């Protein structure tokens, strides 16, 4: 029983991070109708920012979180404002393809500049853990989980309560009407994509704390983020949290009861099944 609880706890902690990863992808997809296949590469970049801040400046990865987010925000904003805005009205396949191109470019630039070696961010408290109801919880994972949830909540508040959030939602609902009301979609698209990238940066920072990083971690993370967005639906950031927890717990259970080599088979299998059965997401509205 305690083993089962431990597995569930591991899954929940993993799932919080997954939710943060998927949030940026779901936001960009919902508002801009771009499935950003370079999202995982952004996460990878965030992880390297955290790694270099830690190794060169000895900056604690949790303190580096705002810096990771800021640098990725600027990067994402410029990418959308000056490149992606050029093709945003092209058929969906073209936008999918161009982000695929970004993914390849970023991955191999990272390989050339950072080398393909595995890197770890290893703060002094990395091994610390505490026990709760007979379940061992690693400190960094709990902290990462809390950060991920806090950021998700913050994004939800920004979208729901601030003028910028309203402009973003207006563009998602009806671009023409938003324009007539004085919203400049070029800036709003830039801000949205920047926010998506910033969330990827935050996820990368936290990922670097709980796992090893190399230039190739991006692609599976993109696929997982996509799976979570599909499971949770795009309407509501809280759906992403449910999707993330679902995938995290599912992967933990799979690695215990079926074997760790099957986790990818199960998560991608579930993705395909959900796509076929309910393309609007498990929690999405039926239209």
């Amino acid at each position, binding site marked *: 029983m305690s083993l089962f609880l431990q597995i569930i706890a591991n899954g929940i902690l993993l799932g919080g991070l997954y939710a943060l990863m998927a949030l940026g992808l779901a936001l960009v997809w919902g508002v801009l109708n771009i499935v950003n296949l370079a999202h995982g590469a952004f996460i990878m970049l965030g992880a390297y920012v955290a790694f270099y801040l830690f190794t060169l400046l000895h900056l604690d990865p949790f303190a580096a979180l705002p810096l990771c987010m800021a640098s990725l925000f600027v990067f994402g904003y410029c990418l959308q404002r000056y*490149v992606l805005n050029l093709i945003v009205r092209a058929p969906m396949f073209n936008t999918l393809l161009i982000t695929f191109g970004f993914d390849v470019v970023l991955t*191999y630039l990272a390989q050339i500049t950072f080398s393909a070696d595995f890197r770890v961010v290893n703060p002094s408290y990395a091994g610390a853990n505490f026990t709760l109801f007979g379940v061992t919880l690693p400190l960094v994972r709990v902290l990462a989980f809390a950060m991920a949830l806090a950021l998700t909540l913050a994004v939800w508040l920004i979208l729901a309560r601030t003028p910028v959030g309203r402009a973003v939602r207006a563009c998602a609902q009806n671009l023409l009407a938003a324009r007539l009301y004085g919203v400049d979609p070029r800036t709003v698209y830039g801000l949205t994509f920047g926010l998506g990238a910033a969330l990827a940066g935050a996820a990368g920072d936290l990922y670097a704390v709980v796992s090893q990083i190399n230039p190739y971690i991006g692609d599976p993370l993109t696929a997982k983020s996509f799976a979570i967005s599909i499971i949770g639906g795009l309407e509501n950031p809280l759906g992403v949290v449910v999707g993330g927890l679902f995938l995290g717990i599912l992967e933990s259970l799979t690695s215990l009861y079926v074997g760790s080599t099957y986790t990818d088979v199960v998560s*991608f299998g579930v993705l395909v099944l959900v796509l076929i059965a309910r393309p609007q997401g498990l929690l999405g509205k039926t239209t």
Partner: protein
Amino acid sequence: MKRAIAWLALSATVVMLPLVPWIAPPALIQFGTTTLLIATLAQAWNIIGGYTGYASFGNSVFYGIGGYGTAIAMVQFDLPFGVGILLGGALAVLFALLLGLPVLRLRGHYFAIATLALAEAMAGVVSNLDIAGRNIGLILPLRKDDVLFYELSLALLALATLIVYWISRSRFGFGLIAIREDEDAAAVMGVNTTLFKSLAFMLAGFLSALAGGVHAYWITFIDPVSAFDITLNVMMIIMAIFGGAGTVLGPLVGAVLLASISEVLATEISAMASLFFGLVIVVAVIFMPRGLADLARRFRSLGWRYFRENLRLHRL
């Protein structure tokens, strides 16, 4: 007159290509074989992605199945190569049929990502199968005959191109194009969309699997990572798009051009070739989203305005 010259050049190339191994150095024959195989993949993708408009991001799954079908038949059951490759092709067709039925109901992003996920899941399944050598892979019997593999690849590409040529002027092909342009309208006009899409997917799968089988026997080794390589999808898609998806010769031109350039770059740093592919995707999508075929057709009348027109059409 110009047309006659073009036809002459084309037929001269077709006659020359099989003779290349007798005059070229071994390195060139190997490069040629690789290029012909990837061109076959691009041409196969052209059937489902270019003509039918279903942007599969997981065609490498067929390539992997073809390779593994051949390898398993030859290594585990001591069957000859000819039987093995047909077995691989049959497996791919079966896979395309069974998974195509549910997956081809999805459109746009959903279809693209579902195929990508299938390729990932398949790599996971194969690396857990004993008969496929798990993570380690299989070693095929050695056959050191580069000329044979070159001619096999060439024949495969010729077959794929003939099929695409037939598609471009047959009733079946017009049905596929109708699906690409407007699937609901095509269904209303009496095109059996499910049947047509499945057939296109199966054809693409079959040709990709044959390429995978030839490649596995040529390299004499297969493992899950290389067999279901995601970058292979990038290459075949970008080659088809760059040359002109939905045209007969576009994917061939795209494949030969890009493969040659990346071969030159890879001699310096291997990561440079992949980097180059990424940059080509970005630039091509922005400035010439309909590929070289469209550029060649319209550049003469529009000149440099062609690129500006493309930009104006799609930007915010």
